[in-house]
């Protein structure tokens, strides 16, 4: 059996099969990305937070655009080479295309990586409006010394990122209704220092029979045993109660005979009566397995908990509930977020103040960022550097406003309420002195455009520059995240669309690579068929380029 029109075109449509297929596939891709762009449009137009405009470094995106356009040219050349039966040229052009795909993904990886390590914190509390100031930067690595955090070297074994919750654990209770998450169990066991014992606080009894004795040390296997015993016990209890229920209903049906209108209510009444009796009868038969198992900790120790594992509503000063319903009792220690600040953003504060009819500047002035007194263990200096940075920004802003007014223009919200990382570097180089900033602005030497500055290729470079440090107390943290989809809907759509686009690049590269590395045999037997295949693969590749042509301005320039 042979399928017609695989190589040659059908007369009335003028097309071969795979070409029809790929165009149909691309049509569906149009609606796929159409759906995603609808999402972008909708989320952006009606966002209730200041949408981050032109927030990504342009250079990686620009290079990637060049790379993809270049690969589009070479892929069409590769097809042309096949048409002219020049195998060598086909190989060269196709190899360049694949190299471009690889380069594209590498650059994408660099961009993603920078964002995964870039932290943002949205503050809470304060007056006259809720403090929605945003602090961006890199989280420091710290370690515990007693109950306090101290700076740690990057390569220190005990070091961890300073955004964890530090909790002095005294006892831990596992819920047996749902199996405990093994990773959590392991985390608790791993973090317990040498010599600290975690043991069962009471005998675990099912129906009078002791399953595990008091003092048994905690382990993964024993939790499995407890859970199995509990499940077994409630299964048995359920079975007994179900049998009683069934017997009652049989009695009700026999008593009532044929159902008639209104019997429903009567039946319910009978059932309720009957139930009281049932409970009396089956109560002594129940095994009554405890639904939780408490473990005592011989000496309280400091447990580091990832904030993602403890929902904010379940954090207490003396009790933490993990997502698998494990309850840890003890005491919450000071767990600040210690970070080097490369940007401060008051746009959200200003936006909310305007909504409430309050002067934005007033709201900003009362923000914790400008009012707090630096203290403490992790941070060396005691001056509020962020406040000084803000004063510098005002100095620059007054210059900028005057400059723009001459042209009949106004500064944007971003100019007014955000200290970007390149500005932060400039202010820092002028020792956070507002006068110096003003005069440097007047001279035009404050900072150059960073478009072609490779040290800031994918964002603020914390290796090269030193940024002011801050220690944000836990109760001031309203919402915190790295620059991942969690941070806001802009980054969510950015990662989703570019991630999906990246998958398309990889998929396309695999197909084209297959033609390059395994196409020789087909080239010799049926070169026209291979040319058709490369054309179809190329059509997909152009589509991938086409999507990027829209993605670049929408995500990087708007």
């Amino acid at each position: 059996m042979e399928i017609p029109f695989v190589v040659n075109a059908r007369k009335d449509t003028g097309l071969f099969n795979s070409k029809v297929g790929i165009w149909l596939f691309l049509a569906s891709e149009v609606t796929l990305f159409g759906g995603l762009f609808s999402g972008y449009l909708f989320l952006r137009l009606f966002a209730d937070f200041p949408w981050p405009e032109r927030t990504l470094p342009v250079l990686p995106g620009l290079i990637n655009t060049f790379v993809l356009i270049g690969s589009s040219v070479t892929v069409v050349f590769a097809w042309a080479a096949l048409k002219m039966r020049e195998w060598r040229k086909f190989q060269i052009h196709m190899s360049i295309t694949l190299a471009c795909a690889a380069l594209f993904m590498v650059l994408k990886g660099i961009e993603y990586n920078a964002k995964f390590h870039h932290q943002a914190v949205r503050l809470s509390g304060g007056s006259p409006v809720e403090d929605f100031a945003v602090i961006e930067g890199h989280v420091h690595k710290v370690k515990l010394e007693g109950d306090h955090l101290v700076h740690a070297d990057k390569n220190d074994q005990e070091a961890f990122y300073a955004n964890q919750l530090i909790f002095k654990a005294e006892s831990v209770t596992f819920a047996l209704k749902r199996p405990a998450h093994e990773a959590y169990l392991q985390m608790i066991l791993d973090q317990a220092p040498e010599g600290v014992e975690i043991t069962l606080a009471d005998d675990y009894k099912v129906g009078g029979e002791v399953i595990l004795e008091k003092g048994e040390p905690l382990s993964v296997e024993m939790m499995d045993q407890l859970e199995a015993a509990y499940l077994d016990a409630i299964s048995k209890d359920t079975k007994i109660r179900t049998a009683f229920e069934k017997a009652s209903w049989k009695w009700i049906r026999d008593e009532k005979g044929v159902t008639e209108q209104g019997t429903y209510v009567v039946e319910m009444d009978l059932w309720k009566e009957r139930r009281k009796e049932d409970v009396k009868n089956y109560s002594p038969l129940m095994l009554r397995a405890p639904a939780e198992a408490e473990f005592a900790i011989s000496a309280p120790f400091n447990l580091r908990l990832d904030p993602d594992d403890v929902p904010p509503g379940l954090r207490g000063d003396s009790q933490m509930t993990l997502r698998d319903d494990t309850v840890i009792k003890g005491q919450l220690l000071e767990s600040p977020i210690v970070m080097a600040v490369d940007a401060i953003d008051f746009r959200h504060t200003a936006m909310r103040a305007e909504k409430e009819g309050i002067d934005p500047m007033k709201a900003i002035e009362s923000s914790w960022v400008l009012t707090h007194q630096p203290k403490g263990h992790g941070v060396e200096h005691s001056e509020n550097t962020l406040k000084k940075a803000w004063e510098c920004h005002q100095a620059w802003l007054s210059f900028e406003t005057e400059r723009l007014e001459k042209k009949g223009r106004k500064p944007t919200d971003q100019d007014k309420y955000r200290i970007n990382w390149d500005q932060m570097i400039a202010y820092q180089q002028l020792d956070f002195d507002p006068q110096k900033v003003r005069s440097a602005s007047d001279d035009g030497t404050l900072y150059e455009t960073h478009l072609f500055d490779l040290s800031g290729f994918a964002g603020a470079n914390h290796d090269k520059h030193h940024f002011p440090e801050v220690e944000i107390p836990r109760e001031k943290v309203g919402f915190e995240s790295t620059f991942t989809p969690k941070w806001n809907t802009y980054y969510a759509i950015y990662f989703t669309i570019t991630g999906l686009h990246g998958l398309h690049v990889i998929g396309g590269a695999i197909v084209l690579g297959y033609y390059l590395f395994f196409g020789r045999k087909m080239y010799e037997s049926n070169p026209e068929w291979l040319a058709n295949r490369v054309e179809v693969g190329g059509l997909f590749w152009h589509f991938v380029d086409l999507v990027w042509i829209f993605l670049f301005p929408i995500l990087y320039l708007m």
Partner: protein
Amino acid sequence: MSAESHDHHDDHHHVLPWWKKYLFSTDHKTIGIQYGLAAGAFLLFGFFLMIVMRWSIAYPHEPLPGYLSWIFTDGWKARWLDDGKVTGDTYNMFGAMHGTIMVFLGVVPLGFAAFGNYVTPLQIGAPDMAFPKLNMASFWVYLAGGLIMCMSFFMESGAAKSGWTNYSPLAGVADRQIVNQLLAGQTQWLIGLVLLITSSLLGSVNFVTTIIQLRAKGLTWMRLPFFVWAMLVTGFLLLLAFPPLEAAGIMQLMDRMAGSSFFMPSGLFSKSDGVLDLSGSGSPLLYQHLFWFLGHPEVYVLLLPAIACVAEIIPANTRKPLWGYKPMVWAVVILGFLSFIVWAHHMYLTGMGPVISTFFQTTTVLISVPSVILLTSMIISLWGGSIRFTMPMIWAAAFLPMFGIGGLTGLPLAFNLADLHLHDTYYVIGHFHYVVAPGILFGLFAGVYHWYPKMTGRFMDNTLGHLHFWPSLVAMNFLFFPMLTQGMAGFHRRWYNGGEGYIEKDPEGINIFGQTVAENIHLNEVMTTAAFALALFQLPFLINMVVSYFWGKKVTSDNPWDATTLEWATPTPPGHGNFVTDPSVYRGPYEYSRPDHDKDYFPQWEEPKRSTEQESDSPAELAPVADDVESQSGEGEAH
């Protein structure tokens, strides 16, 4: 499709290993049957879930009887049943999965993928689908998606539980307590959905390409059987409507796995977690838009294959041409087009605003025009025919009024003012179940009885067929008609205890709604009994399928129904590659009872007598010349 130079002509005699022949086959017929069996199994599973739910509605305080609960393990019962009774959570889970399974895993694969795969290439005279390997991949991706969805019943979280529409933020919050989100039922639902969409994309690309490229010589557009037209339109619907849902599915997956807030508004509060740790500013409305952008075309994806089966069966059994073939073709094309711009009539109560509601109300009312053209044409097709009440015809005949009820009960829902009252009540449930169960499923049953002889070489048994049909017809109506009554009385569609909590016990009481509920609640028992009866009377069908395969009456010719379309020109059952010789088509699809012809049917492939001397050149060019039908009927086909 290997380029190797082995001899293609002896493929018929190749002995393939069994797993290649029956399991990983690239033959469209085997894949069609695989789809059919898998979809059938899913339908039965979905039906079982529904029976458990109906038990809970009618007897909310009574433990499940042994014949329903034996399937669950003791541990499962302890966790998900309250002393043997269905809990609200379990009901939600079953409800969500019932809808999902019936729509995405049952009816669409049965109608589009199973019948489409088996019949379409045969009807257009193609040796196979255009991309046989993609076709196979499509099936296996579908099966993987379906199994992933259903497997979640056995996990700690249970299966998805936020309705088959999976609305955010409810669906975004559900199962949040599960630490490894990959093992949450709600996440697996999404992963399964993305796989199903991938499968249907592969399928629809394949179908449309096949229909465009692989038509036999002489099979011009207006000679295509209506079935093929319906499949073409369905293919386009799947192709263009599913991707936005895939986008929504991916976004919701990000919401679950990466903590984003695409569909989560600011300040979302949950009872267990407090204010959720989310950035907010997402939009639940966006999810609904993207979902229903698929959701409404999906209705026609369900419906068109059933209509298509009926449209094939009616002419073959009335022995006269399909009335209004051309208007029906145009109607189905317009129906497909309009179905893309009616979606928000599912969302009148979201607060979209009256202007946009009016727009969607207008398009919704418009779309009833092509639907009515289709149904009316088929009813008029019966007029004056000498109807042979064969088994498939009985089902097809029942399809017409049943689908009619389903369609007409939809009209009040199209108007946003009426919908304010009826939204989310049992009226909606009654409406779309009338469309899907006694409508679409009856159409597909008709298709099974119609093409079974071609698939197996044996007829299905008539006695068992009647034992299947009549009780099913009665049970369906006792099951779904009371829903319309209850719905108008205000019964909400998601009550797990059938409205027990709302009953006003005092007959003199002033709680009017409570009185209405009390008046109508006994219908729950009627419907539940009907559901049990319906389940019971599917047994004859299942027995029939198996028994007829081995002992059924053998067909005596390749064309047992004396039909005219190309699938009846193949050997029975068709071998790999379908046709013994390349078929040519000389006339339209429904040439029954032509006065100038001696038999009462004139198959598409039968050569006209006077054209024999020219045939050796090129049948494709010859065909339109030889075709004297169109000049007679004066319709003048474009050459």
